[in-house]
């Protein structure tokens, strides 16, 4: 038990260090979104208050489970394409059909943060699918949590 616990701790620490190292290399998403609007977390919070927009959490469901923007829906973006504007959407999986049918419905996509390409790519795919009001909350969960905005778990 003790030994297992120690191993687990080592594992967790190792993973954290690795992900940090990887994050350092990960490129940031673009600052603009063609056919959509890049918003800050404060704007996102305002949208939540308005109650009109549908927040889409594209992160891994596990992270969603850990905490998300109130009222957000979990719609994981299974990302295999490169972190670039010209990503190959064919490599990825994203269940666009689970988005609201109303193409005029305001959608707010977010993932981990400025390096979270999942929400960017999902927003791009949603625009491509014809959704008119797509918001990309680039600060993502990281900035939302850092700003101390309401969280739903």
């Amino acid at each position, binding site marked *: *038990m003790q030994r*297992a*616990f120690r191993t*687990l701790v080592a594992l967790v620490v190792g993973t954290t260090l690795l992900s940090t190292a990887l994050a350092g290399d990960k490129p940031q998403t673009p600052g603009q979104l063609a056919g959509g609007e890049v918003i800050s977390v404060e704007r996102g919070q305002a949208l939540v208050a308005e109650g009109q927009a549908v927040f889409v959490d594209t992160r*891994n*469901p*596990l*992270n*969603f*489970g*850990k*905490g998300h923007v109130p009222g957000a829906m*979990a719609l*994981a973006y299974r990302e295999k394409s490169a972190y670039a504007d010209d990503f190959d959407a064919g490599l990825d999986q994203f269940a666009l059909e689970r988005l609201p049918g109303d193409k005029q419905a305001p959608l707010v996509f977010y993932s981990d943060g400025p390096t979270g390409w999942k929400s960017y790519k999902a927003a791009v795919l949603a625009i491509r699918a014809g959704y008119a009001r797509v918001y990309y909350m680039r600060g993502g969960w990281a900035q939302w949590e850092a700003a101390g905005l309401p969280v739903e*778990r």
Partner: protein
Amino acid sequence: MESATTVAPPDRPRAESRALRPPAMSLRAKVGFGALALTLISFLLLTLAWSSMGRMERAQARSGSANALLVSGEMLLRTAGELMLTQGSLSARNGSLAVARDIEQHLTELSRTDADLSREAHRWSALSAQVDALLSNRLIDVTDDDSLIAYGRLIQGIEGFMPVVRDAKQRADQAADVALHQAAAWLVSGLLGLTALGALAGLTLVKMLDHQLGGDPTLACEVAQRIASGELDPPVPHSNDYPASVMAALEHVRIRLLERRAIEERVRFLARHDVLSGALNRGSFNDLLGLEIDRAGGGAGELAVLYIDLDKFKEVNDTLGHAQGDEVIRQTSRRLRELLRRGDHLARLGGDEFAIIAHQVNGERDIEHLCQRIIESLTEPMTVSGRAITIGASIGVAILDATVADQEDLLHKADLAMYRAKANGRGGYSIYDEALDGSLRERHELVRELRGAIGTDQLCLHFQPIFGADAQQRIGYEALLRWRHPRRGLLPPSEFMPLAEDSGLTESIGDWVLQHACDTALRWPDPLLVSVNVSAAQVEGGRLAERIAHVLAGTGLPPGRLQLEIAESLLIDPQESVTRTLEALSAQGVGLAMDNFGSGRSSLGLLWQLHFRKLKIDRRIVATAATDPRAERVIESIVSLAHALGMRVTAEGVEVDSQLSRVQASRCDEMQGFLLGRPAPDAHPNGPTTAGADPA
């Protein structure tokens, strides 16, 4: 506990301070109270320790529980991960459920005492719900979004919950720590109390043992040393500090030693003293006298020995009995002791002989004064058995001078002086001088020889014939005692009988004379009588009548043929015993003749009362009768007086014819004398009976 023994002033002797100290609590009580207090304290401390041990155990249990909770939280993370990775395998499900149960159980347990935790415990219900939510998924898989979301929620919940658990654990640990320290403190102090109790018990045991074995041995040692050194008079002091047993043992020893000392003193006294009189005995007197002579170192005039002989002791002993004789000895020694000066010694040397060692004698006057006082004291009547008895004493004194060789010599000289005192008349004293020595030595020698002569042929009887008035007819013989002394020749009684009387030999000599005279007379023709002289001592002795009856019965001599001649002097003031004896003799038919009548102070009044049959006129009257006509008148008067009283008269000492004719003219009935017949060793009754014929 012994603070009380130390408050005594240091300058005071220890034993005294101990005795003066007011009685404090006894050792037993002090120890008892101390032990009770210590026991109570220890009991209290141990009870506290016990309860805090309980608290500590509970705190430890909670701490363990909190630890288990923490581990279980982490286990929950792991089992949830396993659940995800194994796609909800049964073991992972059971594990998760078991962990959840554990957590719930520990939480409930901890929440009871931890208010902070119980406030936060509600989080668990959400968390538990999340576990249930995860488990309720139809398919649990890492690819399943719902599973992942539920898993994520669970992890988040656990992470949020863990700090609460950690806090609780920390609090539990702290509480356990505090409880542990408290318990340890109580336990240690309890144990310390127990240790103190043990130490007290040990000390008490040692003290008690010490006490039982004699306590502080100082006083006991002092007392024991005092007893050992012979100081037995002060009793053993009583002290509360010492066990009664030790002091009682010492006291017992002291009493036993005292008793033994008294017995030893008694034994020493008895060994050195005469039991009857309490005076020194002869042995110790001799030793003491030797010592005193040595101490005097030959110095003259310092030391004198008084030899005291009671004059009439023998008579008292013979007539009244030995018990009365003993009483006389006791009273005599008491009187003598009163006269002694400090440092003088009294001894009883034998039957009625006492001796005194007198110190610091200042010349003969001093001694004479002492002797006078002794004689006066002993001449005063003593009361014995309700009867007044007068006992006199004669004293011989010898004063130590250069001529004295040793103690025996000194005592012998005192003895000689005593004999001279007796010879000079009883109730006197005499101081030894050189002149005394020779005469007394001779006298002593003679007594010794006389004693040896009795029963041998040195003593013999001569017989002198007694004639009738016609000077022809022999009536009988007078038996006359003679001593054929080997050096001095034939001695008449007058030369040795006074000695015999002083030496107590009278009776044995008298008995022998009687026996021998009667034996001889038996060989004579019938009417001849034998006349035997009897001394005053024999008559006064009281046994004479009995003795004569015995002799007569033994020989078969008719009593009428025995005549006893009794000196006139005996009858001057006759005692009752004398008249009784004379009566008894007369009753036996023995003839009594009064010897030497007219020589002394005869009591004419007694003449007819005392059964005398005959008067023998003293030879001095007869001797003068030839020349002095008045003497002739005296003889005539005596004869007519005697005849008037029915008595016969014998004339003694008829030596010449003129005397014979005077005597015959005076009508004397009988006569004897050298003219008629001299005393001879044996009588010749068958020979011629006429005057002038010597029986020899």
